């Protein structure tokens, strides 16, 4: 059986009629008990399982997923990876994720198609430029790459921009190391690597309740029976409050639909990521050729994963304003992902009042770019019982102590 992906194995299997490929991950049925169970087979859950096995030697573990792996927000986002945060805690955490992404294809022996094509954040007036300058300074102080460009340089680097837009382009902040990756590949790559290390990945298995005795978790009740374990990690952003409620835990999280769209596929025309907060434009082009367009949050709580016509119109208006050449393109798909929104737009990664039950959630609209670090830090917490230094400020206790990390106002980016 061919396990490792390489040019040599491609040639060998080509000559062999493609009969020797091993499935990327094993089908698993739940055992009666595990050393640890991770609920949620998205990027964060699968990364947690991989790093528990790889970094901490815990291989008697399982990931349980209600649907199919990577079928939630991991497969519904706009695939942008960046670390343009303001505060040291978040900047270091998200830049660690970016660094892990930079080596992830090699680490997992799975091409996640990470393309570091930069992200250009446009400033449309003097005050916008002052904010970008402040943001660039904060990033540089935090050790994150950032470049400030004037209008001429923006036009030289971003093809197809409107010569005379209603909101003039004064300049931009570019993070050259930012980029996009193939989102499904991140889930599949982690699943394959974790399965290889002995992790059971159990799909179509819904958690219906928790076994808790004397304030300590003893197991989970699932649609495939009871699984005993004293160590449970929840990584189900979008549904965090509903799952935590089954353990009697409340979380300061609200669920909203985040709107996104893709156009029909066209030949390569945009080789970077463009963000224009003033015109509500968040745009990149996928390797398939589709323009991937991110819009904002629905203005009301929702679990519907339903498209929104007002957002579609607004996003299209922003794109056409900046790129008149795209005006005759058609939308191919629209969808919404359910995101966990916290008051300070900083994730929640830490203990819960139930001993042995840990939470990874509250990613707002930026969970995909955090996957490697979210998995790394949740694995550290589950294996050692101690918060990883990178995520030490992300615990639930901050809502009582008041030590919020308020990126909602600091970075000024919609999370």
């Amino acid at each position, binding site marked *: 059986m061919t396990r490792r992906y390489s040019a040599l194995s491609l040639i060998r299997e080509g000559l062999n009629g493609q009969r020797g490929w091993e499935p990327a991950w094993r089908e698993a049925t739940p055992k009666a008990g595990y050393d640890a169970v991770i609920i949620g087979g998205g990027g964060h859950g699968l990364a947690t399982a991989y790093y528990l096995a790889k970094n901490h030697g815990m291989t008697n573990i399982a990931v349980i997923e209600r649907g199919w792996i990577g079928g939630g927000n991991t497969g519904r986002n706009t695939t942008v990876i960046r670390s343009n945060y303001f505060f040291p805690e978040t900047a270091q955490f998200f830049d660690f994720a970016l660094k892990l992404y930079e080596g992830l294809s090699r680490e997992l022996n799975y091409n996640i198609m990470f393309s570091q094509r930069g992200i250009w954040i446009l400033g449309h007036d003097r005050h916008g430029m002052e904010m970008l300058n402040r943001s660039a300074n904060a990033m540089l102080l935090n050790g994150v790459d950032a470049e400030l460009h004037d209008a001429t340089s923006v036009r030289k680097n971003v093809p197809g921009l409107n010569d005379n837009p209603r909101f003039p382009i004064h300049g931009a902040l570019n993070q050259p190391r930012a980029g996009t990756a193939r989102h499904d590949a991140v889930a599949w790559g982690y699943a394959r690597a974790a399965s290889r290390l002995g992790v059971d990945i159990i799909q179509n298995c819904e958690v219906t309740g928790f076994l808790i005795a004397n304030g300590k978790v003893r197991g989970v009740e699932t649609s495939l029976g009871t699984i005993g374990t004293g160590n449970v990690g929840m990584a189900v952003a979008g549904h965090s409050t*509903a799952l935590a409620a089954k353990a009697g835990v409340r979380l*300061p*999280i609200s*669920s909203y639909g985040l709107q996104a769209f893709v156009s029909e596929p066209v030949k390569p025309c945009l080789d970077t990521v463009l963000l224009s907060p003033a015109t509500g434009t968040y745009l990149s082009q996928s390797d398939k050729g589709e323009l991937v367009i991110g819009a904002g949050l629905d203005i*009301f*709580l929702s*679990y*519907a994963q339903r498209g929104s016509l*007002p957002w579609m119109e607004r996003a299209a208006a922003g794109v056409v304003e900046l790129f008149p050449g795209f005006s005759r393109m058609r939308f191919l798909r629209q969808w919404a992902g359910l995101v966990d929104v*916290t008051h300070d737009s900083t994730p929640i990664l830490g203990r819960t009042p139930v001993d042995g039950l840990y939470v990874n959630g509250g990613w707002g609209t930026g969970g995909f770019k955090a996957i490697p670090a979210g998995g790394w830090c949740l694995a550290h917490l589950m294996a050692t019982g101690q918060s990883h230094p990178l995520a030490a400020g992300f615990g639930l206790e901050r809502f009582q102590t008041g030590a919020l990390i308020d990126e909602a106002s600091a970075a000024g980016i919609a999370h």
Partner: protein
Amino acid sequence: MLLINCPYCGPRAELEFRCGGESHIQRPGPHGDVDDEAWADYLFYRQNPKGEHRERWVHAAGCRRWFNVARDTITHRINAVYLMGESMPVTGDVQ
């Protein structure tokens, strides 16, 4: 897109409105007796139901008045619209 029946102006499109979040939140007190847990609960913890949610809306591009809406977060169906200061209607009331 939601069609919201403003109690003052009649049915209008979602675009004319803004949502102000959960209704019927009571500030805990007297303030000397409020511990950190209760204060955090008041500031940051919200209901996030899969099902009916009672929330405040304002007709921002219309009469600019606030009112309450009982809306299902899975179907987006609006079960009831009622005035500020009114108590919660029985669940499942149809406007």
